[in-house]
């Protein structure tokens, strides 16, 4: 396990802790973002191969050399999509928070639990 992936898991844990212990909706969303970033680091670290270069085919890296000299490109591609999706989810969560604040004048998660049982 590389340092990057360890850092990723630490970030996931920190984010999760934030999500579960903060009462403020914005802080919960920040926690989510931190957790998401941790996941992205883990993904990138999985594709990394020591001593190899970025999987971008140009003058420095010909298509023929790519399999032996570049890192695994798939996790990099995945992480791009995951970042976009994470961004969308964060935006949606934030828009919910705005809507809730506008109507209920509160950002405390304990105040929005009237729907239950």
């Amino acid at each position, binding site marked *: 396990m590389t340092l990057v992936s360890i850092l990723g898991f630490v970030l*996931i844990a920190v984010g*999760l802790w934030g*999500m*579960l212990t903060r009462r403020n*909706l914005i802080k*919960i969303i920040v926690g*989510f973002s931190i*957790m*998401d970033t941790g*996941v992205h680091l*883990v*993904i990138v670290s*999985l594709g990394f191969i020591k001593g190899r270069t970025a999987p971008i085919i140009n003058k420095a890296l010909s298509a023929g050399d790519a399999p032996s000299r570049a890192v695994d490109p*798939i*996790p990099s591609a*995945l992480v791009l*999509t*995951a970042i976009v*999706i994470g961004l*969308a*989810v964060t935006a*949606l*969560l934030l*828009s*919910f*928070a705005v*809507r*809730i604040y*506008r*109507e*209920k004048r509160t950002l405390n*998660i*304990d105040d*929005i*639990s*009237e*729907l*239950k*049982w």
Partner: protein
Amino acid sequence: MVNPLLMLAVALGVGFIFAWLRPYAKTAAWTLLYGALVFGLAVSIQWLTHFVSGGVSTTVLPGGFSPPVGIALGWGMKEAFISSIVFLGGLLGSIALFKTWRDTPSAGPVLFLLTIAGSIGLIMSRDLFNLFVFLEITSMSTAGLLATGRHHEGAVSGFKMMLVTGLASVLFLIGTVYLYRITGTLAIDQILVSPALAGTAGFTASFLIIAAILVELKIWPANGWALDVLTSAHPVIAALISTVHSVAILFVFYKIFPLLPPDSLLIFTSAGLMTFVSAHLAGLRQDNFQRMLAYSSVGMMGLFVTVITWTSSVYGHNIPIRIESIILGGFIITHLLAKGGLFWVVAHFKDSEGNFDITRVGSTTLGGVIITGLILALAGLPPFPSFWAKWTLIREIAASSLPIVFVILLGALFEVINLFRWLGRALEGESHCAVHAPPVLSGIALFSLGGFSIGAIFLGWFPDFNISILIPFSGLIAAGLVAFLPNRIQISISILILGLAGFALVPGASGIGQAYTAIILGSGALMLLTKMEAANKDKWQLPLIVGTVLTVAVLGAVHTALEFWTSWEMMTAVSALLIVRGKNAKKSALMYWTFSMAGAFLLLAGLALAVSATGQTDLSKVFAGAPSLSIILISLGFLFKAGVLGVHIWVPDAYAESEDDSTPYIAALVSKAPIIGLILVFYYAADAFIGPFEWRVLIGWIGVLTAFFGALFASFQEDVKKLLAYSSMGQIGYIIAVIALGSYTGWVAALYLALHHILYKGLLFITIAGVISRTQTSLMYKMGGLIKRMPLSFVAVLMSIIAISGVPPLPGFGGKWMMYSAFIEAGWTLQAGVAFFASGVAFLYLYRLIHTVFLGMPKNEHINVKESSIWRLVPMYIIIAMIMGIATMPKLLLEPIMNLVQTRFPATMHWEAANLISSLGSWNGNAIMMVTMGVFMLPLILLLFRVRGVKRVKPFNIVYAAEKPERPETTHVAHNFFAHYRRAIGVIALPRATAFWRGVAEWTDTLGDWVRQWATGNGQTYAVQVLLFVSVLYFFMRQTAL
């Protein structure tokens, strides 16, 4: 064939174009939107028919490369079926939402299309990361849909949903990249065959993915968020999430669960079962209909997970397509149309403030029919697809694991109780409003799918089912269609329907069953005559009566176990609907339904076990070879339905609260269904009752004790209908006891008593219904002295109580004589003693019946009551003539009965001229009739000569000095008539069974409340529950996998 990828592309494309086009060209935008949905549905159905007719599954490569380089989309029969469901649900839902969308511009339509497109992606994709993308698309679009509502609740539940599904998608993503790391591919099919999957890392990564999907599938206890979402969403959006989106995710689960080793399947099955039972348990406590539907949706997901993992653990990868189609297909179709339909009903009937009152639904004919259909379909009753699914599922599971059967049936029992409770509320509505398209459409679709399932029988899916068993439905529908005609024409047509049904059913039946069917139909037709007397107030009563008679009758004409079970369910449902129509019958009908369904599920478990153990379908062979346990379950089911001591508490209320005109059919006919059931099971499986433990002795004791307590309870009733109800309970007790004897004399007595019970209980209820309709009360102390006003009714009651009590000369005497003979022949002397004592007690209530209603002084308000109408008197006296005829010439009836019984047991009685000779003595009905008539005539003539000296007395109430009665009627002589007996023996007549069952109900309720409180409404608690759920699941999985 159209490329299936186009469905996805068109839905996505139209979603974008719609948002841009709408401000400029409304009509074009809407046309495009609905066009995309219709296109998707058409393409899916086209492919589905292609696959059904033998087409081969294909793989679509959207990028042009095969995995692991490109993404592969799978496209086969299952995909085409689920995608048809998705588009059908989407199309119906979008029609339901059209008005809302048109009036308030929002992103709703676009998000709706995105959800549909994402769901199609989830169905087709066979690439893990691609699945992640579609999961996120559908999560975000549904959360967005939640927020399009006007209320902030949508945003709140959307926030909770994103919190939990965000957590789930993190698990999914980590699992996916690790699986990629281990196997070098993202394609599910390649991962499945990768040897690297077997290691610990492979196991853990796969577990994370599947756990994430289980959270999305709303598995208990990680489902509080989903309940809040489904409660707060616009009902049509809730339907979309509950049906379309959830079914798509279910299909993802279906694709990926083989990633884990087969040993771990049982854990999934258990998680599914816990979800199913807990959801329906908690649903019992709901007073918000939409939240109840939310619980029901969640429960359904639990059942799906159970079914998928269980069938896989039994069949491996070769699950027979027939089993999968019937079970999963049947449940999914029902889930879409019935649950979706109910959500749509909520959407339509919500008032402007967003409150939903279910009583408004049943206030119109169409609304009543539709909600009845939707709820019965959801409850898994015939002929809806879920019924066939339930039967096949239970039969399959019974073959390997009976405990799972019981857990499923327990959950199903909670569900049907809950559904019927709401149906009862819906049907008592009075206001008027119209029903709009989607519920109507889904109702129609469901009914035609009911027809489809009938078609499936033709296709040979159920070779052990004869279409004639569904005749009661045709009868019910035919009688319903003529409900608008004048009363007498309607009744004539109904009698004709019974006749035609007899023509169709009786020739195909044989032996005791044939006689039973003919007798039930004949008595039903005779009783229908009484309804000629007055215009019909309730136009649905008559079709339901026709349905009840037919469903009871068809039980005699069945040949296979499936046919029997179908008829039984039909009978239970139709009779419950008949009872619920009574004015204050909601609670009584629910109690009837609860006990009947509990009995029906015991019967189902027993039949399923017997069918799978014997491998037979024919009822005679199934019973003959069935293991003892299944026979015991089946008998228990019948005893529940018969209302024997201990489970009798539904009897008085169901009889008393159903409409006066409906009670005769329930009391005289429906009560015979368990009798024919018991006769059939004893007929074919007598040996199962004689073993190390003599079950038949136990059943015999239950019978005589039921007879005794029935008579005792009857004596203490104030309501004449309750008195008769307890009397029926007692009579059924005798019949059960003699059936349990399993001897020639016993069975002749049983059939003879059963037939008489139909006659005299029918007669009594018809007569008493006439009295009640004239006096406007069913309380006996409010009646009295009616002998002068209703002399013909008095004679009818007198005749029937003579018939019941078993004194000569009427047929009850012969029945009792044979009964005691049978007991003594078998050495059951103690039982005979109890039965004899019960007969003595029966005199008490019979005396009270005739005394308090007809004798004494008439009440002021009854001075002018008239005799019952001729339409009531004619059937009454036809029955009396039949009773007299049988009494004079019992041989005419007994000989065929004896011939029937002789096919099972060697004869121990025979005829010598008019004498019936048994091992204990002889009985000559003819001679007894002559002697009794002679003895009766002499005093009568003497009395007629002395009648001049009679003096009239005034009404005489008993009031003690200085006594201040709380209610004036308590001073009436007929009130608490047998107070002295009650003081003496009242302690044994305490309602212990009622107290017991009330305790059971309260405990269930409390447990449901406890389960319900898991959903605290706090998003963070839900997230913690998800983490705990995943951790516990992992712990158990590791235990089984290692």
